[in-house]
């Protein structure tokens, strides 16, 4: 099974080790992983800012770079949602590209749903021992239905002890450029998330999206909490943290 790995721009720049953990998980599941080095960004920043033409350009680029793979795996519900959920809507008036995009979208998976729903792994390649709580990121949850998958995968390792926080499904207040444009509103929203994380008893919040990660970690640290860890689910599953 030949996998095209879509790194995502934020993992590439901010937390490259998450990408390495994702690759480790995929390879241990028997996949052959390839990384097209021409890849950049899925186009979501443009799409959400109302620049549809930019999003279309990057969607075409994605198609050209990933169409030949059996599957494409993305370590982010947000970028995965952009591709699977929104790409087809960008080509309503272009049935040729639309058909190709739809075929590729059907083979494009967010990391935990790929591991759980497609290859159905039953063991993890590494060790992690700790109390965690899980934050459901919005796009993964609502656009892709990612909810049981990360939890089921973590349950494969009995040393990952999950205690659910209150309102785990509530938005963390990131919202892309929203966090910059309305920083005060955004930080009021993330404060509630941080309160719930701290009250959960988990020493570590696990999530599947870099946007939420930078927002939650940034707010935790600003509030003086230097101990609550913020980890991507790939790091926990791969035992790299």
């Amino acid at each position, binding site marked *: 099974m030949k996998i095209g790995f879509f790194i995502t721009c934020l993992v*590439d720049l901010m937390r490259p080790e998450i990408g390495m953990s994702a690759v480790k998980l995929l390879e241990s599941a028997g996949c052959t992983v390839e990384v097209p080095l021409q*890849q950049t960004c899925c186009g979501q920043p443009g*799409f959400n800012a109302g620049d549809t033409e930019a999003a279309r350009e990057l969607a075409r680029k994605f198609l050209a770079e990933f169409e030949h793979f059996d599957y494409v795996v993305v370590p982010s519900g947000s970028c995965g949602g952009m591709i699977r959920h929104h790409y087809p809507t960008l080509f309503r008036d272009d049935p040729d590209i639309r058909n190709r995009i739809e075929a590729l979208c059907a083979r494009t998976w967010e990391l935990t749903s790929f591991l759980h729903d497609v290859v159905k792994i039953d063991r993890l390649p590494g060790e992690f021992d700790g109390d965690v709580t899980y934050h459901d990121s919005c796009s993964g949850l609502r656009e892709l239905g990612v909810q049981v998958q990360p939890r089921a995968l973590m349950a494969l390792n009995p040393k990952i002890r999950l205690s659910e926080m209150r309102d785990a499904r509530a938005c963390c207040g990131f919202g892309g450029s929203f966090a910059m444009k309305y920083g005060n509103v955004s930080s009021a929203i993330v404060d509630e998330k941080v309160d719930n994380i701290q009250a959960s008893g988990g020493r570590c919040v696990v999530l599947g999206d870099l946007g939420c990660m930078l927002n939650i970690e940034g707010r935790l640290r600003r509030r003086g909490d230097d101990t609550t860890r913020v980890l991507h689910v790939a790091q926990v599953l791969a035992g790299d943290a």
Partner: protein
Amino acid sequence: MHVQSMHFKARAGQKLADARLQANLKKLSTNWVAGRARAITELDDFEATRDDAIARRNRALANLDVWIERFERAATARGATVLFAETPADASKLVVEIAKKHGVRKVTKSKSMVSEEMALNSALEAAGIQPIETDLGEYILQINDNEPPSHIVAPVVHKSKDEVSDLFARVHKRPRLSDIPQMTREAREFLRPQFLSSDMGVSGGNFLIADTGSVALFTNEGNEGMCTILPPVHVVVTGIEKVLPTLDDLAAVARLLARSATGQSISNYFSILTGTRAAGESDGPQHTYFVLVDGGRSGLLGGEFQEMLRCIRCGACMNHCPVYQKIGGHAYGWVYPGPMGSVLTPSYVGIENALDLPQAATLCGECHVVCPMKIPLPDLLRKLREKQVDRGLRPLSERAGMIAWRFVAARPALYRPMVRVASRMLKLLGGKRGRISRLPLARGWSDYRDVITPTGPTFKERWLRRRAGR
């Protein structure tokens, strides 16, 4: 109502600092979110019920003109007069004319958001007619210097009991009360004589039934009956999109409205009013008028925003919205707040007059999940952002940023080295702690959160190194 949506940012800041508002909003979201979650499980099949109701609303909107005509014929046959207003201001003029024609001096009002669009109270007052809000929430707002509502279902959600106690003591000139049933009784004592001396009742209309020419009203306080049946004249003001073809359609939608709004299976009071008092009947108005307001609605028909017209005004989107829950309704600056308001306001009052509203959303998607009409609110907000871009309404800095981002993202030969440089620079700035507390070009972020810096080197560098090592 005067549009204040351009002051969103300033108002949102004030609301965030308002501790009382924050506590009230918290209570609302906890109670109503839990209430809705419980109420939808009472239905055998919530999804099927919802799909059925959506299909019925879509059927009505697909041939809205036909159903409106049918409604007009049926209502007229039952003795009512049906009038149409292109703008909310026109609608106010019509209501004032009706009042003058019948020599009205006092108007009792049941809750209506369309009358807020129309700024009906000030139009009536300007004509020397006294409007009296009789919904408890709206009454509280009216006696507090005509404060605007902050929620479409719970207009005084921003107020605490203490504030209302003080207000009642001041305006009613009675000893201060702190028990809610006692306060309600006091309001009732003040409203009862108004009901009995009212010359005309004005109500909104949750739905209009084309088959029968009826208006359907869902309320929780019972004041509506006193406004619609007691006075000699009853005026219904509502939007043209509220027409449903049949009573069956009404039954289908009614199963969702209160459940989505407050978590009730049905509202405490539910009226279907048809026509004027007939010969031999002992109650009901002698004159019934329908003032149907367009106010921008027909502009959404047949276009990419048509789905918005399905809205049944339950308020679930705002009850579940992370942004509304932090800033309340007043920050949005017009009649309708929250996600539905962020689509309706620019659509009805002009995109250029509400630039912040489509932007001030995290696009988390919860509003779409809970909407009983499955209106794709995040998609509609995104389309409004697209229109802002198309019309050149975004600030220069943002436009320049987008052009630069697109240029780089489309050119891998440029992108890769730039990411490498950014990774190193940010890492350097972050130092040993791996974070930056103040970043001049990203103050919107760094004023509230630390900037977490890259762990470096980039994934692509690590990947190439690994490949070379094999």
